[in-house]
């Protein structure tokens, strides 16, 4: 028994030691070896072949391919990649396997449409994906919303956006904002209020934290744009009344009857420049603001999200 106990002890210790050694050596190997590019992983690009190979377990294969697409996009996005060559094939396979997996259309379009490094820069392919989704899920109003969103934000095709929102508004159970958006696209496509409605709807109807944070950040940017437009209009009115530019923000605020100094959504006062422009104190904190930016300012590649969900 003593010999057996000794053998057991030695074998157990050897096992634990070897395991620890394997972990350490493998970490060293990972440091030496470059990571295999994800492009090598997509051996089968034909949706039909994948469907045949799945032996009827299409739903599971669709989930696997969607997960691969999410991981692929996240990985490339983190590395600030400029190309997402495998993204569209992965999404096409996932939707071919399970045409009712609506999350692929909704998120897939938001991965495909924006320009790199935010997305794949393929808005036309995003549109094709959305139309395929609508064909297979005609009663899901959110797909029409996402289609209109892509037309509006990426292609600036307000007529098509209006048409998409109008089609979605006809779906039973569609959100009332679809009708409003269809009308506003047709009349006031470029204005802030339309954009605010779009992003508010995105914030309220999505339950993914990242999407909500992105929508909240866009709304912050819109608030800044609106404030800057109003303040610069006030500067113009002041100049026309007095023949000169206001010397300080306090003078401008007093002339306009505004209580206190106008502040941005973070509570920092807007700055009045000598040439009458209004600027943000911390433009880096407003990733999607298009106004109030100093001349020559370059926004950070990765947007900062200030709202946590």
């Amino acid at each position: 028994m003593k010999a057996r106990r000794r053998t057991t002890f030695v074998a157990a210790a050897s096992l634990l030691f070897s395991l620890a050694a394997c972990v350490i050596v493998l970490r060293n190997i990972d440091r030496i070896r470059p990571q295999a590019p994800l492009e090598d992983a997509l051996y089968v690009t034909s949706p039909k072949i994948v469907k045949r190979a799945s032996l009827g377990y299409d739903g599971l294969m669709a989930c696997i391919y969607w997960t691969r697409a999410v991981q692929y996009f996240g990985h490339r996005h983190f590395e600030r990649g400029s190309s997402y060559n495998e993204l569209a094939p992965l999404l096409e396979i996932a939707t071919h396997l399970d045409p009712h997996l609506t999350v692929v259309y909704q998120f897939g379009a938001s991965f495909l449409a924006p320009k790199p490094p935010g997305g794949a820069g393929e808005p036309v392919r995003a549109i094709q994906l959305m139309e395929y989704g609508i064909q297979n899920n005609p009663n899901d109003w959110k797909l029409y919303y996402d289609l209109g969103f892509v037309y509006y934000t990426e292609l600036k095709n307000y007529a098509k956006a209006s048409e998409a929102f109008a089609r979605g508004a006809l779906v039973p159970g569609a959100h009332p904002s679809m009708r409003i958006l269809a009308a506003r696209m047709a009349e006031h496509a470029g204005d802030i209020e339309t954009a605010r409605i779009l992003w508010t709807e995105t914030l309220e109807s999505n339950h993914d934290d990242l999407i909500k944070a992105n929508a909240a950040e866009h709304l912050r940017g819109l608030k800044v744009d609106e404030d800057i437009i109003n303040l610069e209009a006030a500067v113009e009115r002041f100049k026309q009344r007095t023949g000169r530019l206001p010397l300080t923000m306090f003078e401008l605020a007093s002339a306009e009857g505004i209580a206190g100094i106008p502040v941005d959504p973070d509570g920092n006062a807007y700055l009045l420049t000598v040439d009458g422009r209004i600027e943000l104190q911390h433009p880096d904190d407003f990733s999607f603001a298009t106004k109030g930016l100093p001349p020559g300012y370059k926004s950070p590649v990765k947007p900062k999200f200030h709202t946590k969900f």
Partner: protein
Amino acid sequence: MSARIIHIASNTFREAVRDRVLYNLIAFALLLSGASILVGQISIDIERLVVINLGLTAVSLFGIVIAIFIGIGLVSKEIEKRTLYTVLSRPVRRWEFIVGKYFGLAGTLVVNTFFMAIGVFAALLYVSHKFVGSDASVFVALYFIVLEFLIVCSLSLLFSSFSSPLLSAVFTFSLFVIGSFADDLRGFAGMAQGLSHWLAIGTSYIVPNLSAFNVITTVAHGQSVSTQLILQNTLYAIFYSAMALSGAVLIFERRNLK
């Protein structure tokens, strides 16, 4: 007669549950159901979908593996161990032996499915925090999976009645794969002409039409399955299993066991 069948079935069941491979496969299926929770966390918005898809696929695939690997040995092991002669020397008819073995294996698979389904529902409860009405359709998917097992059991018993275990496994698995494409076979028959048309039609009806039993994707989306389909699939499983068992009985009755 029925008492002899029940005795053989219960012995087959007892023997099957002693097989350690069974427990490993069940454990692996339960592991996969648990892992589905993690898969959902590295994706977006498909937690519930992955749990149902992966869980039910694991139940289905592992059940098919159990049905094949236990079924192929049901007759051949008895011949190899020479226990078959002892059984048949009693007043047990050959067809009673075959039918008893079938019910024993079917019972084993139903019990396995029950335990694997517990894993699926546990994972579903963890992810969704509560059961909703549409989760009831998961029971329909499980029922269809059991019907699939009954068909595969009958096929493995059919091949086991005259062939070696290895060939029985190959034949049964091949029919399972072809059965998944039965819809495509009929589609091909529709496009073909002449002899090809009739051959394709004949083949598509002889191979088991397993695609009709796969409603995993449907229930994963919370959609219900029609009562008509439930009834028709039940009848199909009964008739197809009866056909395969009849074939097994016909072959086994005439088999020279010396």
